[in-house]
């Protein structure tokens, strides 16, 4: 039932109504709204009941194991939520004077400093509101750098074919042409392809490392040399930072710019689709271009750095300072973990991934890169299974839902056929991984014995498989009374 179906004309939720009638009114008649608003007229209880029950229809980290590759679905500590929502923090206006927000600004400044250490970069700006915006800002800085040097012939960004879709999309939003390069059999970027692609037209290379194939790019130093030698810059997509946190610093690998998905590595919640936060870090030469505002600490006082302080900034990418509340959550998280805790994140994320890879392999699943270590994620391919039984990665994914597990990422990276990208994250216990491996094994047996049943999964969810094609063909995007 939709919330609108709980609505009755004239029903009122009085406790949200003003007790004083607004007397004064001075809006020209022709600007006054005449048409009704399609908002529900419902009681507070009906609204609470409706959305409480809706919430129960979701899988979530707080209720299920969620091994969604590339997404780093780790536990979101409840303290981060509670402390970011302290009433004074919530009440603070973005344009309130700096001296009314020294407590808040202190957190932001310290987070900037911590992220410099984590990334090995010279400067950090907190403003990007998600990974894709971090990428946009990063590539904008690359462009600003070339332009400032009068280097206008650089029109291409190189992107490996395993890259996340946001990488090529971002390059295009920055006015670049995208040059895709292939992956070799071991899951590394094909060095020959890279060499062939690089040239004076190369503005930069966007790289995810460990890559979305779940392996560490072995030749990263060499790649960095090649691109830099050609005058291009290196962009580090930090979505997978959880795999190397406290082990490797992107700055040390020669990267010029990085974004970090705090909603992955720093465990701010995904919220069913956001909000995120993806600070960007840069090496020395890109410092002048960082987006504003940033926070400075001078003579015991925190203040915003604006266009005046950073005259060559690429500018503002958000009406205010970005997703402050998300940044506060990340700040609390990093303070809870501390340096040692951060180090351990990558260790246990990697342990969990390699263990689960080993167990699934033993159970009989085909691993996409069986000779490689898993980073914090790894790929299972159902290519052979599909050929033999017709069961697809998506079928298996849906069957996992029946067994109380969220499905891994399916069909990404696109170059691996029938793939499942599995990322268990460090917050899951061995028991959970064992139970998941057991469920996967059960499904393997089911595929052999009752392939049709698996193909029509899910069976034990409130709804069966949904018709995507109908959804796209007969668009129904809003409810009509």
């Amino acid at each position, binding site marked *: 039932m939709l919330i609108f179906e709980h609505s009755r004309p004239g029903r009122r939720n009085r406790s949200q109504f003003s007790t004083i009638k607004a007397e004064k009114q001075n809006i020209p008649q022709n600007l006054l709204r005449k048409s009704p608003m399609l908002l529900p007229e419902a009681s507070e209880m009906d609204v609470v009941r409706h959305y409480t029950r809706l919430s129960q229809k979701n899988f979530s980290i707080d209720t299920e194991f969620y091994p969604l590759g590339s997404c780093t679905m780790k536990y979101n500590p409840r303290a981060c939520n509670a402390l970011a929502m302290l009433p004074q923090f919530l009440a603070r206006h973005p344009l309130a004077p700096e001296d009314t927000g020294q407590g808040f600004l202190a*957190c932001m400044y310290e987070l900037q400093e911590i992220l410099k250490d984590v990334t090995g970069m010279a400067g950090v700006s907190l403003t990007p509101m998600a990974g894709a915006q971090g990428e946009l800002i990063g590539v904008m800085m690359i462009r600003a750098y070339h332009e400032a040097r009068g280097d206008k012939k650089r029109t291409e960004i190189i992107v490996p074919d395993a890259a996340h879709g946001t990488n090529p999309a971002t390059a295009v939003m920055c006015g670049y042409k995208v040059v895709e390069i292939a992956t070799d059999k071991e899951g590394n970027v094909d060095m020959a392809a890279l060499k062939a692609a690089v040239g004076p037209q190369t503005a930069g290379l966007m790289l995810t490392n460990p890559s979305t194939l779940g392996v560490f790019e072995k030749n990263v130093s060499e790649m960095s040399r090649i691109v830099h030698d050609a005058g291009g810059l290196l962009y580090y997509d930090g979505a997978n930072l959880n795999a190397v946190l406290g082990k490797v610093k992107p700055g040390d690998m020669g990267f010029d710019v990085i974004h970090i998905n705090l909603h992955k590595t720093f465990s701010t919640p995904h919220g069913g689709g956001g909000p995120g936060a993806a600070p960007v870090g840069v090496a020395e030469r890109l410092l002048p271009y960082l987006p504003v505002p940033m926070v400075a600490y001078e003579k015991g006082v925190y203040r915003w750095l604006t266009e005046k302080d950073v005259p060559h900034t690429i500018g503002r990418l958000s009406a205010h300072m970005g997703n402050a509340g998300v940044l506060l959550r990340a700040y609390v998280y990093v303070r809870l973990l501390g340096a040692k805790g951060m180090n351990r994140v990558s260790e246990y994320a990697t342990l969990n991934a390699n263990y689960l890879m080993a167990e699934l392999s033993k159970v009989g699943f085909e691993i996409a890169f069986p000779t490689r270590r898993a980073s914090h994620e790894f790929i299972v391919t159902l290519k052979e299974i599909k050929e033999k039984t017709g069961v697809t990665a998506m079928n298996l994914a849906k069957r996992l839902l029946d067994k109380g597990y969220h499905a891994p990422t399916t069909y990404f990276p696109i170059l691996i056929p029938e793939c499942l990208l599995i990322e268990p994250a460090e917050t899951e216990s061995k028991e959970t991984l064992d139970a998941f491996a057991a469920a996967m094994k059960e499904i393997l047996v089911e595929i052999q014995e009752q392939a049709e049943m698996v193909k029509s999964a899910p069976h034990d969810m409130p709804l069966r498989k949904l018709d995507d094609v109908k959804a796209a063909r007969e668009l129904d995007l809003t409810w009509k009374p």
Partner: protein
Amino acid sequence: MPFIPHTEEDVKEMLASIGASSIEELFDEIPPDLKTGALTRVPPGMSEMEISRLMLERAQADGFYLSFIGAGAYEHHIPAAVWQITTRGEFYSSYTPYQAEASQGTLQLLYEYQTMMASLTGMDVSNASLYDGATALAEAALMAVRQHKTSRRILVPRTVHPAYRKVLHAIVRNQDIEVVEIPFCPESGQVLLEHLEPFGQEDFAALVIPQPNFFGVLEQVDAMTDWAHKKHSSVIAVVNPMSLAMLVPPGEWGAQGADIAVGEGQPLGIPLSSGGPYFGFMTCKHDLVRQMPGRIIGRTVDLDNKPGFVLTLQAREQHIRRSKATSNICTNQGLMVTAATIYMSLLGPEGLRQVAAQSHANMLQLTEQLEKLPGVKRVYSGSCFHEVTLTLPGPVNEILQALKEQRILGGLNLQEHYPELNNALLVCATETKTADDLNKYSEMLGKILKKYG
């Protein structure tokens, strides 16, 4: 180890299964010279008790103020139910609803949200959020350019929020899009047709119309819309969603209505929290839906013909279309939209109308009181919604400082953004302000202004 459940025994067993002798061995594919990671500037870990104390102390140091600042972020009462439900683990800790069968809660909520926003703005369709109002405007400009095909010019009045114009500029600049700024009438604070006319000689992809505009003033939206349409250009409305409970929605502007409506969703149940997370909304006419960036949810049926919801039109998005996507946006502001949907449901049409009406009335009342003070005048003659531009008889920063000492934040100094506006202050009053609050402000300001009398 906070949030890591492994016992020593677990680790041993797991390593044995992998066939590795230590966790460190699992990193053996990383070239040793790259392993320089030890974090030296991250402080040691704190217990939850310790960080709680620290954060509480910082929050208390920041304290509370009686605030009359608006300028794109507005203080409204948020019903207690909104965030108690929004932060339920099932909403808070779930991912983007790629697996529809395991995400009907989020998907249905987003479908409801789309319905509400489409209706509020008077448009046909809505996406499921963008980052914020400013980036939504930039995305709308890109959409309009894609749609127009020949022109890459966007007309943007100077009455649009200065930060929005900056963001727009930063984003579209790289795609060779020209942003042309339109002046406004210094008396009314509006963009008049005479200001537009000179810019209509050449083709343009879209005209942006803010309502209310940055000065709080209501633009003559019908005339502007019709003018742009006559030039075969699109109209992008930038609206405050709360104001739409009182004002004609963009879908009904002029003869045909605006083509795209965007804005900042924050007034709909999102706390101010120093600037974010908020959310950008975007609605449009049906024929533009395939140009829209961001997630879109559609209703469909399952194998048993039971109704259900899925992400749809994904072929517009980066994860499918990659370099040909309508935008690079991926993670958006889902949880904020969850809160906004619950907020709108709790208020309903009449509740929302009352919040808007009370905010408007409070602005009028405050203006009346402040205008009684010597030297305080309204700058513009155009009608306002809940924000107004005033001139003060002295330097604004000094006066704001004096108010702040009384724990009042008196508004925004406009000079930084409009150098021509001397001693001008942008003041906002929402429904949260009581008669006592308004009196306190006008009395305090009266006392302070004596100095400049």
